[in-house]
């Protein structure tokens, strides 16, 4: 299995609180991505990174911010969590060569109450 770890795996938080999810890789891959998975919507891209301190927005970036201060870590922050952000969040990594497939983490189940 690719070396990609998400933490925490489960979290329950209250509306209005900040939340940070962490994605850690040991593959030295250039690209890192955050997706959310919701029933009936598949996976939707939140943000992605193409290098240290290089990030860009995805399809559903409102209410989320990211940071990548080193190659191995990609953080997703919900500045003020809302119930609509209850979801399963997946991190993925991919190498610079397109023939390198994207590897996914096991997911973080976030519940905002």
């Amino acid at each position, binding site marked *: 299995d690719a070396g990609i770890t998400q933490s925490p795996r489960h979290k329950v938080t209250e509306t209005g609180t900040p939340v940070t999810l962490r994605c850690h890789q040991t593959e030295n891959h250039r690209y890192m991505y955050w997706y959310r998975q919701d029933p009936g919507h598949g*996976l939707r*891209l939140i943000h992605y990174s193409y290098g240290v301190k290089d990030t860009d927005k995805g*399809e559903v970036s409102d209410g989320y911010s990211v940071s990548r201060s080193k190659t191995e870590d990609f953080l997703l922050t919900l500045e003020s969590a809302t119930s609509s952000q209850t979801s399963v969040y997946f991190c993925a990594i991919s190498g610079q060569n*397109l023939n390198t497939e*994207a590897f996914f983490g096991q997911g973080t189940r976030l519940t905002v109450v």
Partner: protein
Amino acid sequence: AQSVTQLDSQVPVFEEAPVELRCNYSSSVSVYLFWYVQYPNQGLQLLLKYLSGSTLVESINGFEAEFNKSQTSFHLRKPSVHISDTAEYFCAVSHSNSGYALNFGKGTSLLVTP
């Protein structure tokens, strides 16, 4: 921008029967095409991909998909399914313009019964 449409949200099929999961895409540029599989409570795993070359691509567990540029389709097929193929299947496209980020369809739930 690219988009992906998976035409069936659920596909029930009997064991050992053939199956086809349909995927159509739209894009103004050339894209790369993928099928991912997700088993319950797990992350996604790559099933197969089309980057260039032969339009028919195969996976190690008997699935195949054919890239059809004129019909903008990338349907997934298997001639004989097993119970263990029960899972969620996602079609996706990517392009270098967006950091090779995958743009997914909404998924097709394949349910194989005895």
